[in-house]
Structures are given as structure tokens and as C-alpha cells.
């Protein structure tokens, strides 16, 4: 049996004092490194999670359907798309990226938090790091955003290889694209934080039916927002859905030939939703971990 390594009493002081900002930065970096490490270990499941949805969507709607006769009749959006001069693969690209971004926020923040609060309490040691509690929540949002960006980027190669008709993507403004992707990804993380802290852990399974499905299907993912003009009440109603601004933003940035909202409006609304959801989510987080 090995003998204990005695620590002399003199060294039993807390870690030497540094400025609060250095202390916070180091703790924050530590949390980030930990998340990165765990993600790297679970790379396989992560890849499956982010690839399956766009893969199947593109395969069914842009490969199988066009091979069927009369596909446009079965798929009104396709006919609408062809009316504007682009095919449905092109309509779908920004929408699928928005879904990928949103879903990563749920999978990276909401679901793990439900497990944490519901049973394992694994997050305890991270909450106890020398950092204001809200920063632990911010770290979750930022790390989730990185996963969202990867998930969105994965859609590109899939959309290039799978569809039977080519996708027309054209970036007119890289800064706008980057701004949209970053804002949308952070908003998705904040949404995940809000859901993960607001929903009772035992009921987290319900959020797919109650939140995820509605905001996806009513998120202008499979059709441009302008195309909703025929159903005016719905066109106004979906404006409270942050996914609308994610898909419209990506549409404006990637497939500008399709009708889309005004870019300034998109950036403004994404910022508003980011601020709102971060505020609600962080408050919920603090309420969950501090009695």
C-alpha cells in the first residue's frame, strides 16, 4: 500500500489570488475544455445526431420525390419553387440548416440539462467553479452554438451530393452570412437553455411534440415566409417563432434569389430573441441550481 502524500500545512491555502477577470476566464476556459473533451469522446453519436435529419430530408424530398412522376403535384412547395425559378433543393437548403441549428441547441443544452436536473446532478461540480453562476449558463449557450455551426455546415456537402437537381447557393455577403449563422446558433443555445430549465425533467420528452415540432413546421423551414401571404393570420402568427428568422436569415444569405425578409429585420429579430431567451434561460438556470 502506498503511503499518503502529506501536504504541508503551509501550502494549504486556496489557489493564489488573481484578478477576478483572470479567475473567471480560466474557469470559463476550463468548462469549455471539459465540454470539448466530452464532445470529442462522443463524436460518433454527435455525427449521427447532426447528419440524420438533413440526410433523410434531402433524400426523400430531393431524390426520391423527383424520381416519382408528377412529384410537383404531390409537393406544392416544389411547384412554388419552380415558379420562382429555383428547385426545391434550393428552398430546402437554408431551411434544413436552420433546423440543424435549432435542433443542436435542444440536443446540446436542453436534453443534458434535463438529465442533470432530473437525476445525475453532474453539473454540480461545474456550478461550484469560481465563476458567477450565470457564466456557467453562458458557457452552455456558447458551446451549443459551436455544435450548431458544425451541424449547419454539415448540411452543405449533403445538399451538394444528394439532390437529383442541383442546389443554387450564392453568398453575396459573407459578413451577413456569418452574422446570421452566429446569431442563430447562439439563439438556438439560449432556446435550449430556456427549455431545459423551464420544463420539468420528467416531461422533457414532451417538448418534441409541444415545442420542437411546431416551431420547426411553422418555422418557414420548408417554404419562404413571403409564400405565407395567402394565409395572412399565419404569416403574422409565425413572427413569434425564432426559427422563422433563422431560416429567413439563411435564405437571405445563401439563396437570395428566393423571396425573403429584409436582412436588417432578420438581424434585429435574431438579436432580440437571443437577448430574451438568454435572459429567461439564465434566470431559469440560476433558479434550478441556487435554492
Amino acid at each position, binding site marked *: 500500500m*502506498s503511503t499518503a502524500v502529506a501536504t504541508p500545512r503551509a501550502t*494549504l491555502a486556496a489557489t493564489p489570488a*488573481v484578478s477576478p477577470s483572470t479567475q473567471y476566464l480560466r474557469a470559463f476556459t476550463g468548462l469549455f475544455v471539459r465540454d470539448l473533451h466530452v464532445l470529442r469522446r462522443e463524436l460518433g453519436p454527435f455525427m449521427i445526431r447532426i447528419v440524420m435529419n438533413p440526410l433523410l430530408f434531402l433524400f426523400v424530398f430531393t431524390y426520391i420525390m423527383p424520381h416519382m412522376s408528377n412529384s410537383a403535384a404531390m409537393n406544392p412547395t416544389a411547384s412554388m419553387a419552380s415558379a420562382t425559378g429555383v428547385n426545391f433543393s434550393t428552398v430546402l437548403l437554408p431551411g434544413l440548416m436552420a433546423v440543424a441549428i435549432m435542433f443542436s441547441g435542444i440536443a446540446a443544452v436542453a436534453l443534458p440539462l434535463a438529465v442533470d436536473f432530473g437525476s445525475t446532478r453532474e453539473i454540480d461540480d461545474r456550478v461550484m467553479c469560481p465563476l458567477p453562476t450565470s457564466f456557467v449558463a453562458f458557457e452552455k449557450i456558447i458551446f451549443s452554438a459551436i455544435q450548431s455551426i458544425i451541424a449547419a455546415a454539415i448540411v452543405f456537402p449533403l445538399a451538394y451530393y444528394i439532390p437529383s437537381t442541383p442546389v443554387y447557393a450564392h453568398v453575396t455577403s459573407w459578413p451577413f452570412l456569418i452574422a446570421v449563422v452566429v446569431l442563430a446558433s447562439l439563439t438556438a443555445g439560449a432556446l435550449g437553455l430556456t427549455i431545459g430549465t423551464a420544463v420539468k425533467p420528467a416531461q422533457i420528452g414532451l417538448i418534441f411534440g409541444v415545442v420542437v415540432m411546431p416551431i420547426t413546421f411553422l418555422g418557414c423551414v420548408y417554404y419562404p415566409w413571403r409564400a405565407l401571404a395567402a394565409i395572412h393570420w399565419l404569416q403574422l402568427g409565425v413572427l413569434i417563432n425564432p426559427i422563422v428568422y433563422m431560416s429567413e436569415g439563411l435564405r437571405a444569405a445563401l439563396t437570395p434569389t428566393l423571396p425573403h425578409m429584409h436582412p436588417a429585420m432578420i438581424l434585429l429579430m435574431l438579436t432580440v430573441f437571443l437577448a430574451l431567451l438568454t435572459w429567461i434561460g439564465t434566470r431559469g438556470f440560476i433558479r434550478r441550481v441556487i435554492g
Partner: protein
Amino acid sequence: MEDGIVSLRGVRKVYEGKQAVTAVAGIDLDVREGEIYGLLGPNGAGKTTTISMCTTRVLPTAGTVHIAGIDAVRNPADARRTMGVVPQYNTLERACTVAENIQFHCLYFGFSKADAKARTAQLLEQFHLTERAGAYPAQLSGGLAQRVQIARAIAHKPRVLFLDEPSAGLDPQSRIAMWEAVQRLHTEGITVVLTTHYMEEADELCDRVAIVDGGKILVEDTPAALKNSVGAKTLYELDLREPSDTLGPILAALPHVSGVEQTPRGLRVMAEHADGLLPQVVSAASGYGLRDLSITEPTLETVFIRLTGRDLRE
């Protein structure tokens, strides 16, 4: 009263709700640097709430909490640097190995990667965990997981270690191993604050014990002084077939008997000396349906029962 390394003043915690629950009803407490301090009390006494307020996880409704001079309510992020915490439940990261659990903890507290590695190796050795360094928490027994949690909690060299019900769910052997680990930390100079509802644990491990009930500290002293406060060296627990009012005074009149009290099953005779007393107690009580008799020494449980009229496990 001089401020201790853990210092609570007028601390109260009321949980608002349909029915407001007062978990802690005004606690003043000072833990001296280097001692092992125990909060002993039954479940629901307010021990965990008290320790959670010390560890910045529960905000007090009123009062102040200072850890190593830092206001833990106003400045929780700084206060956390001075404390290590082992909560009641296993909170090890399931996706990380034993070594990684400790290493990441070090990183949170500003260690460089090399320092974190070195500190982890040292702790694994100190806690006899080196062989399990690459194991995942799910593969560990309760006792081992507890040891990893303690190693992780002290990885950033805190001045105070908080242990909430450290032996809950541990088998007797693991409990003794845990006590040894805590005692070793104690000799290295770390201050330990623990909660427990096992009187043996408080008695064996703690330099000072506060007996807590109903969100208040009833009494606070060394285990020896608390047991002395009972005023007897030996206790005779008499199990009687039927209660009797006349037996009490007869027993109380015996030499060296310092007191007699009613218990649910019969009588308790407290004596300063035991010499030759047993036959006298037996012969006096045999006419009253004496079924059983046990001889014990006062324990912290006796102290608790005398203070509250209840059992620790009730």
C-alpha cells in the same frame, strides 16, 4: 464571539410556497480553523440547508455567511475558491474518467494543464485511486465514488471541506475508510464541516458537534462535554412489563444514582458509578415486571433524546 473560518450570523432560510417552510430558524455558528465540526440531527433538521448556504447553493432569507472572511452570499464566486464540497449524492461526471473528473476540476480553479495533471496524480495516490484512474464513475462502488468525490473536492486546496451526509449509503467498511481519509485531511490542517445523522460518526470524527433540530442549534460542544452533560457515567435501560409510578423514587434513592427518567418502554436509571449497583437495581425492579435490562454509556443520542424527547431516527 470571534469569527471562525466558517461564520454564520442570524442565518434563516424560509422556503416560500403555499405553505412557507422554515428550514433554518436562526443559526449562529463559528467553526475554528483546523477543526472537524459536525452538525448532528435527524433528517429534516435543517443541516443540509445550513451547509448549502455555506456552499453558496442556497441563498439565506436573512443573516450573513462568511467563509475564510469572504461574504459567501455577496461574493459566491470568490468564496468557492476557499471551499471544497462533497454533496450528498454522487455528482461525478459520468462521461469522464476518475482522473479526468479531478483534472477538469483543477482547470476550473485556474490550474495550468501540467499542474492539473500533477495534482491529479498526487491525489489519486493519496486516496489510493491510482489503479482506478481510467475507470468511469459508473464502474465504481459507492465507497470508491465517495473517495473520488472527496479527492476532487480538495483538488484546488481549499481551506474548508464541506461534507453533506458523507456516510449516507456507505457500507460500514467504506464508512471507516472515509473517516480515515477525513482524519488524514484534518492532520494536514484542513477545516472540515460535516452533517450527519449518525451519532457514532459525530462522536468518532468531530472535534466539536452542534446538535441541530427544527432549524436551530440546540447545543454545541465537544462530544465528550456533551456526553458529560448527561450527568452520568452509566445508564441502565429498564424494560418493564407495565409502567409504575412507585419504582422511580425507589431507584432514585439508591446510592450513586443521579437520576431516573421515564422511557417509552420503562425507566432509565442514570448513575455516576456502577460499583455494586446492578444487583440493587435488578432486585428493586424485579417486583415490577422487569423483562430486560441493558447497560450503556451516554452517547450523543442520549444527549439528543434529553434535549428533544425524541429519537435521532424518528
